[in-house]
């Protein structure tokens, strides 16, 4: 049987519904030593900012039960270096690129998006409105995120939407009472898709030193531990908005990915589990194909949102 794994986000068609989560794949070089990264539906790159960022002071990561906390703080090479020295590699490999961007103002998001569009730096743009690790921990422990304010989400989305034609994805935070509200805002703002979830705010303390294990005090929780939370939110949002949802949060296996697709995600992203198994995305693409074969499904799109609620 011929199985169609192609899915689309806005006017972009992807060869399969599997991408990687921003910040867990760098700019593709490292893991291209493990597999042909053009086999991915798309490569999602580490959040880009206008200026290069050093990120937070280490320690930046702590392992937790079935997961990890990170407080990287958006260390990245900056948009210019990305365009100059990271992009050519991805283009040469013929990857579909989702460029994740982070700004500290509407203007910065717009500039980043425009630069990307102008320089052909991306096939889709993902706006990270939900990074929990970029505030000075000493002064702003409360870390209000753009994604926590439906109005701001709409405003930010609208601004970027008006400036570029590239498919636009808005990435939201699970640290919210009702995830469907900012999702609806993003849709109203003209987003082509919603990415959920970014990490859950978390913390760990070393009882011996009585200090937080992360120098940044708080960090973002990811990995299989959060999968049930992510899945619930994907289900909530995909029933609420008409635009596609990109689901992520603890996906390790094809079976996990299937849960998200069945719950309503158009695509899935593999994040922290890459650190454990860099080949996970390839295994998952293969596993999706096998599942379709075994279940007589000729088009993966037929699976999306097919959860049976009795």
């Amino acid at each position: 049987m011929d199985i169609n794994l192609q899915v689309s986000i806005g006017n972009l068609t992807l060869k399969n519904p599997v991408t990687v989560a921003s910040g867990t794949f760098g700019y593709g070089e490292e893991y291209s030593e493990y597999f042909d990264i053009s086999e991915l539906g798309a490569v999602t790159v580490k959040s880009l900012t206008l200026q290069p960022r050093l990120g937070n002071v280490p320690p930046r990561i702590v392992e937790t039960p079935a997961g990890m906390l990170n407080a990287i703080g958006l260390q990245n090479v900056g948009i210019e270096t990305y365009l100059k020295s990271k992009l050519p590699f991805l283009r040469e490999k013929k990857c579909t690129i989702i460029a994740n961007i982070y700004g500290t103002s509407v203007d910065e998001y717009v500039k980043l998006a425009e630069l990307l569009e102008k320089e052909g730096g991306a096939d889709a743009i993902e706006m990270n409105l939900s990074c929990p690790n970029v505030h000075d921990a000493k002064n702003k422990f409360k870390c209000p995120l753009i994604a926590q304010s439906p109005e701001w989400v709409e405003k930010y989305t609208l601004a970027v939407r008006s400036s570029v034609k590239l498919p636009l994805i808005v990435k939201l935070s699970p640290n919210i009472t009702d995830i469907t509200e900012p999702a609806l805002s993003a849709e109203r703002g003209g987003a082509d898709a919603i990415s959920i979830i970014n990490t859950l705010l978390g913390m760990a303390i070393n009882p011996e030193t009585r200090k937080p294990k992360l120098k940044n005090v708080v960090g973002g929780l990811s990995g299989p531990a959060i999968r049930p939370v992510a899945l619930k939110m994907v289900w909530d949002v995909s029933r609420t908005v008409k635009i596609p949802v990109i689901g992520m949060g603890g996906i390790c296996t094809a079976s996990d990915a299937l849960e998200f697709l069945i719950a309503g995600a158009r695509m899935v992203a593999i994040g922290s589990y890459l650190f454990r198994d860099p080949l996970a995305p390839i295994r998952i693409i293969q596993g999706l194909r096998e599942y379709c074969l075994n279940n007589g499904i000729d088009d993966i799109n037929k699976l999306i949102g097919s959860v049976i609620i009795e």
Partner: protein
Amino acid sequence: MDKLHECLITLHNLVAPNHYRMVLQSKEIATQSLPGQFVMLEVSPGYYPFLRRPMSIERIFSDGVSILYKVCGEGTKILSTLSTGEKINVQGPLGNSFPIPKEYSHYLIVAGGIGVAPFPALVEGILKVRGIAPEIILAGKDFHHLLCEKDFRQMGCKIHLVTEDGSAGHKGLATDILETLDLPDSTIVYTCGPLPMIKNVHKICEQKKWLCYASLEAEMACGEGVCLGCVIPAKMEIENEMMARVCREGPVFDTQVILWDKIGEK
């Protein structure tokens, strides 16, 4: 080049209280490995622990490598329960390696505790490249914690033993000996061990104008440079960054590039 290997454990021994040596069979890893590199071990199937564990390559054989490790937490505890004949998933070799520049006449190793782990491979490397056996300051809490002494002797190294409790060799710290050693200008120092020790070794080397390479540790998630979890502040210019990834730009660093005052205690 495949970096993921299902390796047979061909040997697994208790070498000192709480310390084990494990030999991992893999021709691929063996032929690719250089002294100073490390591997990431999947200590258990399932999600406990979730992340792999980094371990220095202790020795490089024709068909495998060995690691030398200390049980200090859950991951290493589980690791220690594995038996010869079982398989373990090994990612590597990873990271850079110890440079062995030819223009030096004297090679000195300062190893503290389990920090000795990468040095048997380095000694063999130096012997191969330069035909010289390095001098070694082997320090530990007590005589139990002086690992690989016999191996180093067999390799022809001159060894200074140091223990904190005086149960073997000099009573005190590795740096006590380092300070008193009268070595030629063209000495190159390699060190690995607790961070305060490395820092002091660095200071002494700076004074004495010896080039010093340290193998550093950091909490690692990916081991491959993508998560940016393992960084240390450094003066190196890596794409405008000053946060060097221990797993990619390291684990071996010229200690002069490390921004020591930006590294606090944990």
